[in-house]
């Protein structure tokens, strides 16, 4: 209500009729929760596409045999299934002539292929051949899935389900990196000095923020997150990731940073790295690149993870801090500056002054 409001206006009266008691925090929260639930409901009703998709997924998930079983529990027998059973069908099997002589070797074929996954090269094509030969004798037990292809994307772009948010984050990182470059090019000395100060400050904040992130993530059962990585703290790098990073320049810079710029430090780093490397790669470069390739495939990190990690580490400390804090706010409704984990997004929106440090003074 603004100050100009006439004190005789109706608005004052209205206010009076409402329960005048100061609202407690719990009440406020309840109200916020109610609003959130309402908003949720509205959203659900709005998105027809979502409804369609959910119904489809729900319908596709359950096989007709499972449905028939459920019906049977409620006393309804499925006649079609009964007919098929009479013909000798058992749920879970496929149709078609049973080749009694063929069936024993076919289940064993995949087993043998799995038994030697890391064997020498000769066994792999053989396993591939047996795998491709199998479908000719084995029939389908499940209907073909409905393939859904997005728009006009070419082959190679359609599938590959990126982890939710990862692609967005990647794009944001790319933008940040571009901004960063522009800034350093054009800024004057004083700006640069201030920039450096802020950078150091952010670096200091980053440590605690990341620790919070690790704690919250681990509580959720997450084993790894790009956002945990801190170039100043080698302990934040899980085993093997550093080797998996493809950008050698970045890796070298990281190692330099971690060990301090001293000669001893670098030596120590070198020794540490050598100890971790397979023996063959220690000496000449040619063989090392060849030997690293299979190593690469063994890392538990997907190509996407690695790419994201590289991008993340290239950013300035401020940008990294921003990403971590964003993540905490969105995923856990946690505000680093308040030091509080809110109940949900609405709670956060209602009670946290804002995403910036300045807002918290």
């Amino acid at each position, binding site marked *: 209500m603004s100050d100009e409001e006439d004190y005789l206006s109706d608005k004052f009266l209205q206010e009076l009729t409402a329960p005048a008691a100061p609202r407690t925090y719990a009440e406020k929260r309840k109200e916020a929760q109610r609003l959130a639930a309402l908003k949720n409901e509205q959203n659900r009703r709005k998105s027809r596409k979502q409804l369609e998709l959910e119904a489809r997924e729900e319908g596709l998930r359950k096989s007709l045999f499972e449905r028939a079983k459920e019906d049977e529990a409620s006393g309804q027998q499925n006649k079609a299934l009964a007919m098929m059973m009479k013909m000798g069908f058992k749920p879970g099997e*496929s149709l078609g*002539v049973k080749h009694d002589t063929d069936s024993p070797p076919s289940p064993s074929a995949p087993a043998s292929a799995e038994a030697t996954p890391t064997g020498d090269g000769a066994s792999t094509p053989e396993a591939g051949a047996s795998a*491709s030969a199998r479908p000719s004798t084995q029939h389908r037990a499940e209907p073909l899935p409905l393939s859904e292809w997005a728009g*006009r994307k070419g082959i*190679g772009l359609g599938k590959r389900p990126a982890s939710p948010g990862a692609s967005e984050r990647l794009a944001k990182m790319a933008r940040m990196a571009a901004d960063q470059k522009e800034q350093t090019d054009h800024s004057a000395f004083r700006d640069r000095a201030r920039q450096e100060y802020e950078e150091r400050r952010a670096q200091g904040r980053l440590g605690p923020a990341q620790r919070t992130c690790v704690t919250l993530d681990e509580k959720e059962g997450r084993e790894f997150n790009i956002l945990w990585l801190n170039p100043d703290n080698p302990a934040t790098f899980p085993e093997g990731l550093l080797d998996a990073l493809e950008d050698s320049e970045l890796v070298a810079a990281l190692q330099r940073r971690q060990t301090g710029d001293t000669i001893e430090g670098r030596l120590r780093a070198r020794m540490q790295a050598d100890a971790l490397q397979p023996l063959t790669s220690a000496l000449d470069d040619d063989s090392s690149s060849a030997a690293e390739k299979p190593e690469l495939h063994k890392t538990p990190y997907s190509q996407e993870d690695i790419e994201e990690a590289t991008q993340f580490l290239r950013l300035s400390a401020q940008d990294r801090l921003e990403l971590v804090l964003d993540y905490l706010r969105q995923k856990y409704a946690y505000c680093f500056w308040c030091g509080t984990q809110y109940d949900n997004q609405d709670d956060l929106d209602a009670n946290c002054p804002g995403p910036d440090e300045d807002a918290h003074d």
Partner: protein
Amino acid sequence: MTYNPYTSAPPVKSASSSTSATDPLFGFLPRNVNVKQVLKAMDGDVNPFTRQPHSEQYKKILQIRKKLPVFAQMEDFLKMFSENQIIVMVGETGSGKTTQIPQFVCYSDLPHTKRKLVACTQPRRVAAMSVAKRVADEMDVQLGKQVGYSIRFEDMTEPGTTFLKYMTDGMLLREAMNDPNLERYSTIILDEAHERTLATDILMGLLKSLAKRRPDLKIIIMSATLDALKFQKYFSITENGEPAPLFKVPGRTHPVEVFYTQDPEPDYVEAAIRTVLMIHRAEDPGDILLFLTGEEEIEDACRKIKLEADDLMNQDPESVGPLVCIPLYSSLPPQQQQRIFDPAPPPRVPEGPPGRKVVVSTNIAETSLTIDGIVYVVDPGFSKQRVYNPRIRVDSLLVSPISKASAQQRAGRAGRTRPGKCFRLYTEKDFMTELEEQTHPEILRSNLANVVLELVKLGVKDLVRFDYVDAPAPETLMRALELLNFLAALDDDGQLTALGSIMADFPLDPQMAKMLIVSPEFRCSNEVLTIVAMLSVPNVWIRPPNQRKEADAAKAMMSVPDGDHLTLLNVFNNYMQNKHDRNWAWNNYLSQRALAQAENVRAQLQHTMERFDIDLVSTDDQRKLYTGIRQALCCGFFMQVAHKEGEKGAYITVKDNQVVALHPSCGLDTQPEWVIYHEFVLTTKPYIRTVTEVKAEWLLEFAPQYFDMSAFPDGETKRALLRVQNKRSRKAIEGANGNSKGIERPSKKARK
């Protein structure tokens, strides 16, 4: 083998007019004919099958035939044919196998001497017709006499005279229904087996078991691709499991250089257009074939290519020649499909840069149609595929990646006339990793209700252990049995009922057959027959891209607000009333061809109805008539019902609970609570198509088993049905004046 050619069939008896020595087939022993005999008969002056002198045209065609790759191997073929019951044959398109092999078989098998036929199946109607025409010319006979064709709703044969019959695979399957041993045939050739259509797959299963029962029946499986081993293994009927013998004919193909992109394409249509223009500007003369997925996409691409190419030519007339862009898809009228055979445009000025033809096609140009002069193929790697899913009973018509086999087939199209190039708009790595080996055969992608009914009628008792080449998903079979049981075509033990037997004789989906059979009870069989005929032909509506508004307005004029089925009836009746006006269909944005076809189909179905004494009746009162039609519809399509739930015109399919929308082509002016739909498709969205309003009372009355409330899944739909049911029973009580008899089961009047 105990078979003795000398006793089982006598040498050809000469006709009264000619003596044996002058008979061109003198000395031919059925199935033991050698190449010299055949060549002599072919080169002779008298047609061995008609005893008429050969025409000039015949001799000309014979010279062309002799150049076909398959002709050079006649000797090997005749030998293998004499010695084996089943042959698997592989020949690439252009080898001449479809036209020549059946003729070779006729010369060796001499079916006319035994009053038998040679059948050659084709997956497509058009192919059966056009190949039969061609072969009739080659054999110098009139089409429909010695050589004929038979496709659904059209029989171009003369019983007793025809001995070589081209037919769709579906037709042969239907014939097998009433003649499980296919006694009329001495040799059956399944052509284009690699396409793995539903009917061909089922026929392979039937023929495999038939081969044991009928050792005199010869079977040839012809395929264009090299996956013959699968067929050879499948058809190994000897004790020791030896694969069936393979007869291989080289195609006339040239090497094709394949190019891939460096990175995946963000927009394959845009990339395809770019590639076509790049070829036009930089590559040697030669026509281009571009594969896209659907009508709209193709028309759109044609427009864009044309615009860009004209621009290029105007900017740089010295080096860029004229370009014509020709669309090709199956719903295109035949005259327009013929345009793909037009030559490329001439240079704009004499001695100027040569013109080029671009054909933008769906995957019908992949195997079925051969366009000469194609040197460049652009392959974005997609096609539209129909996939049925039994869990939610939907047909998805989505754009999906093609298989490696398809990609190879597409590339092969570039090497028909000279060495060519194929541009794949995806990376080589994605070709290896993202594409499946083979396209899924149709039997894995289809609703099987029709086929199951046919098989049961045919006497196949065990559908579970039937010898499928590729077995369908068990759930698909379950859905088919469920539908047939609810329609009372099969009893609870899976035995064919009398009704089911009649239904199977209609070349229609079981729902439609059922609806047609019950229609006299509602005094509307004349009208239902029309609707069924209209539903059996391609889309009658024409919607030219530049006249959409006019077309929609014309359609609105014809629409009946109660439902699209009634609209179809209205359209057909108007068509019949205006038959004198040749431009009527055109002026109303309707397809003359489809309407004429509907008329033909209607006449054929009428014959079948007469055979079973199903009366053709009508009512004068239009309101009653429309109600009757919609009630008959309920009797056939009660499993395809959707209930309106929530606002915004969302419908939920009954029992499967799928959220669907009315298709934009739907002509209903309101959103009724209950609708029956002809199909449920998943394109860009889940849609129900061809929709008519019905009443819940009818559903409860005419399909009590399906709408049995005690077994109905809980939800909004059930509540709505219960409300109606309660109202009905209250009414019944009032009607029965408190008579307790009326209360018990007021609504149950099963109609079978």
